[in-house]
């Protein structure tokens, strides 16, 4: 278990480094530029250099902030995401702890990030940050519901919350083929849950400067970004497990297939970011409550019906 935890921390760090480089390269090529090229071959070492620079920055704490909450927020956003790694099946045997309530654990922990955003935005004592935090809470709560209902559709088909069971049940065909709507809904909600464009209103703002992390500098700022990329990994991993057959695949070892699927989904999320403009806040909430929830419910009902009739 301890080895597993150390492995997880190592994975999270390397993953974040890799994803930041991947994002910069993907965005660059989509924008007809090259991205980092100087530091290391094709800029591969650039993120390490940036991380070292960030570690050297001064940790400024503005005077009027709510200190305990302000200091805790970056930690609270990071810890649950780390813990969610405990149940992800990287291959048939590579699971740290195959719990009976695996999927529920992940979903519960990923909800805690909202608390961290609220803590960060509120404690900063800054109107823009408060705005960002309020929007983040509304957005995450609204998109959590269709996410959960979509996951329920898949669980209905499998009959168990254990992640290894879900992968095992996709022996003959991947669930994306029988639940395409659920897959699309899940990806949409996942993009909203991780605060990525086109749903990135709480953060990268041309309206609110920098949203809930306006007042954070240096390593604390880095923690928020680390958490975002790790969150992307977790949600893509869950999507891969639920819909794309987890580590299943011919010839190559399970781990390789799993990572390929996860990074393909992350690439998709990055593609969204560099293509679409931002949705307006009221439109965002409208889509969640008036479109996605009814669709998710419909999907659940149809799944239940089909299973009953079989």
């Amino acid at each position: 278990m301890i080895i597993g935890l150390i492995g997880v921390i190592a994975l999270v760090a390397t993953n974040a480094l890799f994803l930041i480089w991947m994002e910069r390269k993907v965005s660059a090529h989509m924008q007809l530029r090259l991205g980092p090229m100087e530091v290391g071959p094709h800029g591969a070492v650039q993120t390490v250099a940036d991380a070292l620079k960030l570690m050297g920055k001064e940790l400024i704490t503005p005077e009027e902030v709510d200190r305990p909450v302000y200091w805790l927020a970056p930690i609270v956003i990071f810890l649950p995401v780390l813990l969610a790694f405990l149940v992800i099946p990287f291959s048939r045997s590579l699971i740290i702890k195959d719990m009976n309530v695996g999927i529920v654990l992940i979903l519960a922990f990923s909800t805690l990030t909202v608390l961290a955003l609220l803590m960060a935005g509120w404690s900063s004592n800054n109107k823009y940050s408060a705005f960002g935090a309020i929007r983040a809470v509304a957005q995450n709560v609204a998109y959590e519901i269709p996410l959960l209902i979509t996951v329920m559709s898949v669980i209905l088909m499998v009959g168990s919350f254990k992640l290894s069971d879900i992968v095992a049940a996709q022996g003959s065909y991947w669930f994306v083929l029988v639940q395409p709507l659920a897959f699309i809904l899940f990806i949409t909600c996942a993009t909203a849950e991780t605060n990525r464009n086109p749903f990135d209103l709480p953060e990268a703002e041309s309206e609110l400067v920098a949203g809930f992390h306006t007042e954070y500098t240096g390593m604390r700022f880095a923690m928020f970004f680390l958490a975002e990329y790790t969150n992307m990994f977790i949600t893509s991993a869950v999507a891969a497990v639920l819909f794309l057959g987890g580590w299943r695949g011919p010839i190559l070892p399970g781990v390789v297939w799993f990572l390929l699927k996860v990074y393909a989904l992350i690439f998709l999320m990055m593609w969204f970011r560099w293509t679409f403009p931002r949705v307006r806040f009221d439109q965002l909430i409208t889509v969640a409550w008036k479109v996605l929830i009814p669709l998710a419910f419909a999907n659940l009902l149809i799944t239940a019906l089909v299973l009953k009739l079989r």
Partner: protein
Amino acid sequence: MIEIGIEEKTYTLNLGPQHPSTHGVLRVLLEMDGEYITKAEPVIGYGHRGHEHMAENRNYQQFLPNMGRVDYLHALAYNQGYCMAVEKLVGLTVPERGEFIRVILSELNRISSHLVWIGAYLLDLGAFTPILYAFDDREHILDLLDRITGSRLTYCFYRFGGAPRDLDEEFITGVRAFIKRLRSRFRDYESLVTKNAIFINRTRDVGVITRDQAVKYGLTGPTLRGSGIAYDIRKSEPYSAYPAFDFQIPIGEKGDVFDRYLVRILEMEQSLRIIEQALNQLPNGPIMADKVPKRLKPAAGEVYQAVESARGEFGCYIVSQGDIKPYRIKLRVPSFGNLSILPEVAVDTLVADLVAILGSVDVVIPEIDR
């Protein structure tokens, strides 16, 4: 007028003066009720450099470079307006080739200004990629204009009586190649932006400006034409070589943000048409009027000359008292009137809408502040 700290239900939020979306140093004082704006008051003057005062202390030639700094995005139109006003005062006629050169360069500049606008506007809305595509296209224009005028941004090219340098073959081939390239790029813009559902949702039925408001606030340019009024100085009060060309004035229907966006896209296509026709019909001959006096001393009188810049009507009002220095120059800039409508249009909108509306009005703050 916003009184800070008196209302209990509303609070004050400051947009700017340093802000990614205000296109220059603009401050908008917002009184907000939750996420909705109850009052918006633009505060300008952060970039006031006193151009009109400078005009009274320089002679007419010395004031020429100032015009490029008033609106740096469509500097050649301002050059043209000022030169034409002075030429009217003095009684100079620009030869035909000179007028054609002025039109070609000004229209190229108009396209580059609209490209900057598209890129910056979509960046405000959260789309990070179109700005790089637009700037890529703009680089070609800047290279072409750099060949002839020597500058990339704040041009000071036209002289009283014509243009100082002629176009060469390489420029003309370059422009023709660029026209072909930009036409193919319009398809990209259309699929990436114009038909994008998120973009349409953000811009349709937002910031509607009625005809009545347009008349009362004196709006001009694409901001006006989005509301369905076909007023373009190039057609309504033709000047220079524009009567020789066949082009249309795109107008919108509803007067919302989307219409103003579409008008600018279509205007770029029309500018390409004008440039094409100008290149095909380019006459031979001199580019400068002969006998332009070295020291201009216009007779006493006043003159008003209007030209159509990318943002609307630029008017140059000169009062001369027979001296080598102008007595008074008033620069009537389109963004001044266009921005003054913001307090009326921004009521009961969200901050995100305010950003969309402000961007669609296409203001360049230095020209407001002068």
